[in-house]
């Protein structure tokens, strides 16, 4: 066993998990509180990446661009909430799925028209572009460590907000009992708009963080949205804790599966077949886990308290 | 008379709140047994456990000598327990007749039939119409259920309970939201049912309860504090103190 590789891959898995958490936390907030299925959450992830990438090229600094791009993405989320999402809160999930499916097509094509098809490579400041050598063959890119740090920080921030602030209290109350919140005289519409914009900002933030690694590209959101749904379904819709644990679980399984499954498969099949099937099987793994979890616990691992 | 439904040591709590607290209750065959109690006493929770919608934490429920504590909801219905809902629960986008016909069909037990159009099956239709007639809704048979008034919905609930032909009917506040006239109509109707079916009635309308019930159980904070004939309940001091006192 190559322990250095295992450690590196575990950290890679943690990094993917934290990124997934950022996307999934926004999704679970919108889903849990607004009872709104937003397939276009991934499109907001992409939008965030493109806005930030464009600003980076325009301003010449990735971090400044991010500081501006996050509220801009939140604003885009707010706009979508007002125009598409709000009229659909009272409708069934099917309508929401279809309308946001349409929204994906619209946003994807608009981004193609505005930014071109080739995507944008995001330059990083030199101090972020290097790598840290921990010895014993453990070398990690500085930037990936930054994502890990940023992800943990955001996770703490979110937990703090949900647990200790007034808005967090409202969010928790809104998730379990919507009528009660409106009975308390809280402007539920403003709360919903805030939550939607917050979700968009989180998705956008995740997209911005990944874009210096994979570039901002069209369709990048479609890759992650399904995985993010798997995360929150496994974790239990509306549960921040569930989203975190689900994201880490899926991130680790995906990365470790991609890393070690072909070696394992090669033990009992031809190397060529192992090379092809291993990535597909590791992609399947997360769905198998989801099906297994739901077969045993139809409400996910950490369902929020009864509605 | 033997007891049709026998509940022993039933408990159910949600979080820290005890909704059902050591309930022991016998419903005798053929009687109309009313369960009363202030709001939040746990009446609907109790019915839900009896019908199988909620599993109890501990205790046992015997029906016709059979332990049904863990039986699934649809299984209990098959054994002969039917319930109406406090908040009207009908298939709103179907016609009135279809709603009743579904109950008749359930009783006949032949529903994995794929070919013949259900609406053209005379025995189904005719029996459903009989029950609609019994509650005075025959003329509304083909109307979409959504178009009926609240009072008519309550009557439909009764017709469904009738159609299921179950020995035990559990009626959860059938008078809720009815005007005086409609209430009177319901009371008259329930009177005609007395003796033919065993009925567990949950009701807030005390006039109706005392006019209809053979025996009454009083539920307070999930616990039964007294069971007896209407006269016994009227004179029970604990009941007067805990419950009737507040009503006046």
């Amino acid at each position, binding site marked *: 066993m190559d322990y250095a590789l295992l450690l590196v*891959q575990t950290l890679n898995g943690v990094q993917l998990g934290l990124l997934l958490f950022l996307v999934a936390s926004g999704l679970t907030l919108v889903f849990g509180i607004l009872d709104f299925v937003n397939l276009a959450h991934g499109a907001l992830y992409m939008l965030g990446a493109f806005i930030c990438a464009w600003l980076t090229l325009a301003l010449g600094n990735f971090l400044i661009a991010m500081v501006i791009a996050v509220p801009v993405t939140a604003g885009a989320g707010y706009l979508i909430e007002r125009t598409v999402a709000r009229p659909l809160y009272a409708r069934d999930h099917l309508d929401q799925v279809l309308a946001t499916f349409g929204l994906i097509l619209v946003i994807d094509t608009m981004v*193609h028209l505005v930014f071109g*098809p080739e995507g944008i490579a995001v*330059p990083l400041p030199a101090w972020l572009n290097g790598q840290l050598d921990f010895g014993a063959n453990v070398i990690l890119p500085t930037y990936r460590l930054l994502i890990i740090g940023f992800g943990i920080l955001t996770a703490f921030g979110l937990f703090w907000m949900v647990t200790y602030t007034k808005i967090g209290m409202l969010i928790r109350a809104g998730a379990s009992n919507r009528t009660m919140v409106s009975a308390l005289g809280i402007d539920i519409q403003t709360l919903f708009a805030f939550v939607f914009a917050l979700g968009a900002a989180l998705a956008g933030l995740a997209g911005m963080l990944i874009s210096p690694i994979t570039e901002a*590209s069209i369709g990048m959101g479609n890759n992650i949205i399904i995985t993010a749904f798997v995360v929150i379904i496994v974790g239990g819709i509306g549960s921040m804790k569930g989203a975190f644990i689900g994201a880490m679980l899926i991130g680790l399984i995906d990365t470790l599966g991609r890393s070690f499954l072909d070696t394992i498969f090669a033990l009992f099949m031809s190397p060529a077949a192992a090379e092809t099937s291993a*990535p597909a099987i590791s992609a399947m793994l997360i769905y198998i886990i989801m099906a297994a979890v739901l077969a045993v616990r139809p409400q996910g691992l950490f369902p929020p308290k009864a509605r | 008379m033997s007891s049709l439904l026998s509940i022993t040591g039933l408990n159910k709590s949600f979080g820290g709140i005890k909704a059902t607290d050591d309930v022991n209750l016998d419903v005798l065959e053929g009687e109309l047994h009313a369960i009363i109690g202030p709001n939040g006493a746990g009446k609907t929770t109790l019915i839900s456990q009896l019908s199988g919608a909620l599993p109890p934490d501990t205790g046992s429920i015997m029906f016709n000598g059979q332990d049904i504590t863990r039986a699934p909801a649809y299984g209990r219905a098959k054994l002969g327990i039917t319930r109406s809902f406090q908040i009207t629960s009908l298939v709103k986008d179907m016609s009135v007749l279809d709603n009743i016909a579904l109950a008749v069909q359930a009783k006949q037990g032949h529903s994995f039939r794929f070919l013949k159009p259900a609406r053209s099956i005379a025995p189904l239709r005719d029996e459903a119409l009989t029950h609609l007639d019994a509650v005075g809704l025959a003329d509304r048979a083909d109307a979409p259920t959504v178009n009926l008034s609240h009072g008519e919905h309550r009557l439909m609930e009764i017709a469904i309970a009738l159609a299921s032909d179950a020995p035990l009917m559990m009626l959860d506040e059938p008078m809720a939201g009815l005007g005086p006239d409609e209430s009177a109509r319901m009371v008259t109707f329930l009177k005609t049912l007395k003796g033919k079916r065993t009925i567990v009635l949950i009701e807030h309308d005390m006039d109706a309860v005392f006019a209809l019930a053979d025996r009454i159980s009083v539920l307070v904070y999930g616990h039964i504090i007294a069971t007896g004939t209407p006269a016994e309940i009227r004179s029970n001091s604990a009941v007067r103190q805990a419950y009737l006192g507040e009503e006046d």
Partner: protein
Amino acid sequence: MNKTLTALLAATVLAGPAFAEGAKIGFVTTLTTGAAVIGNDTKNAVDLAIAHLGGMAGDTPLEVIFADDGFSPETGKQVTDKLVKQDDVDFVAGYLWSNVLLASRKSVVDADKFLISANAGPSQIAGVLCHENFFSTSWQNNQTPMAMGEVLNQLGVNSLYIMAPNYAAGKDMVAGVESTFDGEVLGTDLTKWGADAQLDFSAELAKARASGAEGLFIFYPGAASGAFFRQYDQLGMKDDLPVYSVFSVDALSLPRFQDAGFNAVMGSQFTQAWDPTLDNPANAKFVADYIETYGSYPSFYAAQAYDSINLIASAVAAVGGDMDDKDGLRAALEAADYESVRGDYTYGNNHFPIQNFYLREVVEDEEGRWTTKVVSTVFENHQDSFASQCKLP
């Protein structure tokens, strides 16, 4: 609804059967998704070729209809069907992706049309699935990595780790480099491809580094190459695991690498059948006019697309515009009697070019733009290894 259908019906009846006047070319490429950047480049090249020809092949007017394959074999096949059946084209050309070409092949050859691949060269079509009406103006997939394997041997690289996308061409590339490389292959990773391609290679790169290989061979065309090189750079792998690539650094990615200040790519080497500096008049004109028209160097995709139109035009001219003379057209195509931007070449029995392969290097041109130049010739008049499996004489 029925009104729409009636209208549609009326329109089609009025339009009547498409009557062929001149030669019609359907050009299948990728115009949506991230890979559209390649598709647009080929489209530019086709437009330029038509402009250079004055829209005529001899006395016969040429018409080109573009179709978008959406980066998916299924869509590619659908648009091919439409070109063949509705537009009744005489040639279907283009095809960036081997899997799209494999899916569409049957539709074209069954309809007795000519299929001209301007990029994809899957091993199956070079071998068992070869067809008299199929021609390539690019290469067979395995050839370019075979040349790279040869270069690796010359450089004395003893062990290799391989990364490629999991699709027909990816597998051919792996097979190609393995067939000529004399050292040991320590591991291979095939990653998800298509519209939802995998772009985060952290796990694979960590494995490659841990494998202890002396070199990393990659094939990542289009946008994926940017993501790959970025991550490779961030891991600081340049010194302990040099990368050897095919089809991953091109005129489309170089300007973006330059914008992103990605200096690691400068000086990197890769093999190819064409380069903008190849010294022949057709190439000089093509490159100069392309830069003038579109403001950037043409990519090899563009060069091959440009060639495909010129090859077709030479055949159409040879038969004097008689599109029903299939045998005449075929013979003219086989002759490859046109000014190819890669210089003269001949066709093998499977209708893949027998041509040179060069080692190219990334350099800066006099205006400071990043481009490539030829370092050496790796193979001369090289024929692919599947030609023997092709039953055509």
